């Protein structure tokens, strides 16, 4: 044991120089990420007071979350956002990737255009959606009623909770298509071309080729996207903050917007910390289950 330790010590001192390369990074990481993480766990058990001493309240913040009706609404909206936007981004991203995965003039230009919303700030695109869906003279209302005659009169998109959520989800899908597309393109390009040639010789139709070659071989890409987009969907915040601010009457709150409101508007920091840990637990369990049940089924 002692010898082992001494060996370790000499090993470490021999590599002193290498550790110096890690010191600045880990100083930052420990101070500004790890410490806050642990600190927030502690906070979630306290009735945090900004100025006075904070009292230990055990699980009260967590129990409170289960009795808070807005938490229910926030989780419902967040999960719904995931259920709609994750498949939406994946289906449209895959569609775009399939269209772009062939020799085509202007391929790079199309790829760039589809990716543009991904690199643009959430604040700006949320404001654009807020403007085009506004109920007075929004261009969407105008197109739907006056040009295509699909709706009989203008819709107050951002006034009703469900239509407001629809706008936020449409934004989420629109902004995310490009990212899924790039990941799918990378996946598609890793499929050997000979497989399609062989299938073509055997007389398989494009649809058969898609179902029997493309989908099975894209499986790990699909699982990866499902997990990453799933985690991302639980993080929806800026679009809600900018477009609806959780209203009307908190009906469009998502978990993070409610956590933010509780913390920074009402100064219930302990409660906010508990809400973020509940969200983290949900994200962790959901990702783990997706990984467990989908990943082991991948076989070639």
């Amino acid at each position, binding site marked *: 044991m002692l010898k082992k330790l001494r060996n370790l010590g000499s090993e470490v001192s021999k590599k002193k120089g290498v550790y110096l390369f890690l010191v600045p*990074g880990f100083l930052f990481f420990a101070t500004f990420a790890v410490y806050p993480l642990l600190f927030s766990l502690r906070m979630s058990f306290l009735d945090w007071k900004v100025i006075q001493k904070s009292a230990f309240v055990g699980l009260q913040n967590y129990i409170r979350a289960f009795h808070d009706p807005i938490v229910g609404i926030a989780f419902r909206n967040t999960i719904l956002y995931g259920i709609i936007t994750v498949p939406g981004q994946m289906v449209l991203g895959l569609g775009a990737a399939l269209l772009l995965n062939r020799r085509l003039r202007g391929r790079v230009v199309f790829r760039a255009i589809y990716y543009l919303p991904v690199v643009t700030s959430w604040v700006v695109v949320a404001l654009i959606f807020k403007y085009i869906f506004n109920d007075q003279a929004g261009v969407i209302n105008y197109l739907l009623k006056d040009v295509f005659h699909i709706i009989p009169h203008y819709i107050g998109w951002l006034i009703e909770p469900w239509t407001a959520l629809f706008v936020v989800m449409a934004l989420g899908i629109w902004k995310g298509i490009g990212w899924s597309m790039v990941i799918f393109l990378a996946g598609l390009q890793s499929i050997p071309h000979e497989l399609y040639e062989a299938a073509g010789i055997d007389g398989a139709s494009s649809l058969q080729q898609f179902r029997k070659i493309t989908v099975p071989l894209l499986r790990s890409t699909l699982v990866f996207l499902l997990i990453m987009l799933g985690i991302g969907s639980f993080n929806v915040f800026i679009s809600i903050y900018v477009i609806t601010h959780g209203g009307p009457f908190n009906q469009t709150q998502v978990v993070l917007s409610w956590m933010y409101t509780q*913390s920074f508007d009402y100064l219930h920091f302990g409660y906010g910390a508990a809400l973020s840990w509940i*969200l983290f637990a949900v994200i962790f369990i959901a990702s783990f289950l997706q990984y467990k049940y989908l990943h082991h089924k991948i076989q070639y």
Partner: protein
Amino acid sequence: MQQRKGIANGITVVLLLLGALIMLAPFLYMVSTAFKSHTYVLELPPQFIPREPTASNFVKVWKSENFRQYFLNSLLVTAGTTVLAVAISSMMAFAFARFEFPGKSFFFWTLMTALMIPGMLLIIPQFILAKQLHLLNSLWGLIPFYTSGNLAFNTFLLKGYFEGLPKELEDSAHIDGASLFTIYVRIFIPLAKAPLAVVTIFTSLMAWDEFVLALTFLNDPSKWTLPIAIALFQGEHMTEWGLVFAASTIAVVPVIGVFIAFQRYFIQGISTTGVK
């Protein structure tokens, strides 16, 4: 056969053009609105191409002292974060990629767990930490938080690249008696221009667009960065869409410029880190 292929290609192009229209239209409409005077922004039927285009919104935005301040603030935070994050993470990546040392995998995986934790989970404790360290309401105070938020991704990406370089590189330098730091600066950094470009682009975009931390940390309007200034301005002046979108256009143009100039690096960055 040839004809069928032609039809298929035709359908592909039509679909792609339709998609491109959906992707671009909101941006075009933003720019078009930015060129409309106040009376026309909520007019029916909406004008897709402004009848009387005016640059007055841009002039007004750019002339306002506040806006120039916000622009400079964003620039300062972005530059500071990018320099710090790229320097620190390339050092870590160098150590992780080229050396064996006790605790290596522990340190590496500790860092990597940060990739799984949603950034907003930390907003409350980070706010309190910033308060304790007197970093609230200061642009410099944002930089360490932005930096630590970028370390894991950057280190991961650069490590992969450094690992691929041949082992002889540092061996010969070692024989010449070069120090580790010399090897890192003189040999590895110059060889890693492409991946360094990738992390530089990603880090600076993240810092330029960051909203939540800046919203939470900066109270004093003279300290605001562009995203907060734009969002809060819209909140206060509900109908000043022309001004909002002129400011947004100015904020977005550098991003789109960087994106178009370095498109190759973007795609490379995503495909290498996205799917392993």
